[in-house]
């Protein structure tokens, strides 16, 4: 049963279409992310749900009620803005209390709810501070508390962590996920950071050029990308051109000088197809055991793993290997590259826009 339903939601600005036919169902309590590069229409979609942008076409249903034409201040949706948008002239507690005041919640109850919510985000000791006197991470929590205190049916997060530094962002990701599960509010987050979307969400909605490209659980979106865009936007990948060739009457794939069987070749119309192999699914071995042969061009040490760039007949390949504590392969070495058959994905070219 869907709690929030978007029905072919479209927004046009003059001749440009910011969001095209967005259709999406979100279940109660679910955490869904809209993921895409800037200008893909994710923020426009969020603003239409929030009521700040009027859709050109389509409907928004929340809990079965059509809210498409409802005013933003009637929808009761909690929103955390990218800039946090805190009220600079009010203390932390006053910021959090504002939504309750607007709802005319009795004073003692609003007091209790504000302190409960500030405790939830770990700011109960800073209620008297002004936003200016807080760090970025603390401001973020105030914004979250202010949105949660009204117990909204739906929580919208607009790039909530993009203004935090990397370390803090990781901590906040874990915390955000915990708080969301604790409160159980249906949440829709907009982000361009694929790792954030993958780690936080129950489902990700990958968007490009105003369209929804794929809606899936994070693991599936990563492992079974629909097309070349998803595979390269969600995580790193090697996109390779291959040909369907005939070997002993069996259709096979040819990649560089390597010809190999592929379980599903039926339904492939064109001879030239795109393959995706994730860098971590490639293995480096000696040149006699590889399916492809190449030479190490660059090697980057990234702490917990190594990133290799290999020149091969099939094109440049990225390979990541876990760091086991010794340097086995160096720049300029000839290596063999191999993979398990299930590491290969055949992709459609992106066909929209």
């Amino acid at each position, binding site marked *: 049963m869907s709690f929030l339903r978007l029905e072919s939601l479209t927004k046009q600005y003059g001749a440009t279409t910011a969001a095209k036919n967005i259709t999406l169902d979100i279940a109660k309590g679910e955490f869904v992310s809209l993921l895409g590069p800037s200008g893909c229409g994710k923020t426009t979609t969020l603003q239409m749900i*929030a009521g700040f942008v009027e859709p050109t076409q389509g409907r928004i249903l929340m809990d079965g009620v059509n809210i498409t034409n409802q005013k933003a201040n009637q929808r009761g949706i909690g929103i955390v803005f990218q800039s946090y948008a805190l009220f600079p002239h009010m203390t932390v507690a006053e910021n959090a209390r504002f939504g309750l005041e607007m709802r005319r919640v009795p004073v003692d109850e609003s007091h209790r709810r504000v302190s409960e919510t500030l405790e939830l985000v770990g700011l109960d000791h800073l209620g008297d501070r002004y936003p200016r006197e807080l760090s970025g991470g603390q401001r973020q929590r105030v914004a979250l508390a202010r949105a949660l205190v009204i117990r909204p049916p739906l929580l919208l997060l607009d790039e909530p962590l993009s203004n935090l530094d990397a370390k803090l962002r990781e901590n906040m990701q874990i915390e955000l996920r915990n708080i969301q599960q604790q409160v159980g509010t249906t949440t829709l987050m907009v982000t361009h950071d694929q790792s954030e979307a993958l780690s936080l969400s129950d489902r990700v909605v990958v968007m490009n050029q105003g369209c929804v490209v794929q809606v899936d659980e994070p693991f599936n979106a990563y492992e079974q990308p629909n097309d070349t865009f998803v595979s390269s936007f969600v995580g790193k990948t090697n996109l390779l051109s291959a040909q369907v060739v005939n070997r002993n009457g069996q259709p096979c794939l040819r990649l560089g000088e390597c010809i190999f069987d592929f379980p599903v070749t039926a339904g492939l119309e064109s001879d030239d197809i795109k393959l995706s192999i994730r860098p971590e699914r490639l293995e480096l071995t000696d040149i006699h055991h590889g399916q492809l042969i190449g030479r190490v061009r660059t090697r980057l040490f990234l702490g917990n793993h190594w990133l290799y760039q290999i020149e091969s007949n099939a094109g440049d390949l990225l390979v990541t290997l876990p760091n086991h504590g010794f340097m086995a392969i160096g720049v300029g070495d000839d290596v063999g590259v191999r993979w398990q058959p299930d590491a290969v994905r055949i992709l459609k070219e992106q066909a929209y826009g």
Partner: protein
Amino acid sequence: MAELTSTLSETPNPPVSKRLAPWLLSGPGAIFFLTLLGMPLLMTLVLSFNSFDYSEGIISTFTLNNYLEVLTDSYFHEIFLRTYGISVAVVILCILIGVPEAYILSRMRSPWRSLFLVVTLAPLLISVVVRTLGWVLLIGGNGLLGKTLEALGLAEASAGNLMYTHTGVIMALVHVLVPFMVISVWAALQKLDPAVENASLSLGASHSIVFRRIVIPQILPGILSGSLIVFALSASAFATPAIIGGRRLKVAATAAYDEYLNTMNWPLGAAIAFILLVANVALVMTYNRMMERRFRRTLG
């Protein structure tokens, strides 16, 4: 290497030319201001301690009599009270007109916004005297306002004559000074994060609550500094009160002018001018101090 050490050893004691550079650079400006502003001010201060006799003219003495006269005579009390009364009224009207004006301007769409901002500020390009004479045409004895009232049968033509009245002076001053309020509030509005208004809407606030509780408190420093400019300018305004208020409605600036040019009592005029200056500076500084204390924590 030898060069490096020599530069390092010189750092605590830079060459003379380097130490003089800031003085030489700011010198011309400082001399310009000292001669053109500082000197006349100093001479006015000295003059205000001199005394005046109708037969002998200005006598070089050192006396506080001029100050005592201004501070004790109820005639001057009335003039100073009128000056500040008019200024306060002008400030209030400028806030009531200028703040909504700036807010509406800031919410306009892109080609109109800059167009109307120019329209708002364009009067600053016209001389105050010319603009005030324009008001005389409107509110004078035989002016447009009286004629209109008469034609509409609402009142006699004389009801439209606002010359030599507080209303007339205040109206003309507000017209002259409202752009300063608009500029000041406009600058404050530019610093507002547009998402803040959306945030308060999402929390269930109506547009009027957003304006009152979210927008106004954040642009308050702009309103207050605008008020400061408008207050200082209207307390020391000369052309508008001189033309519309005339002799009948003297303010401090026109009183000083009259002492200089009609009574020829320069020392008394200088004393009035100095009291006005000191009072204005004191008011402005107190106000500024108050504002800084109020907003340091919240808005920086």
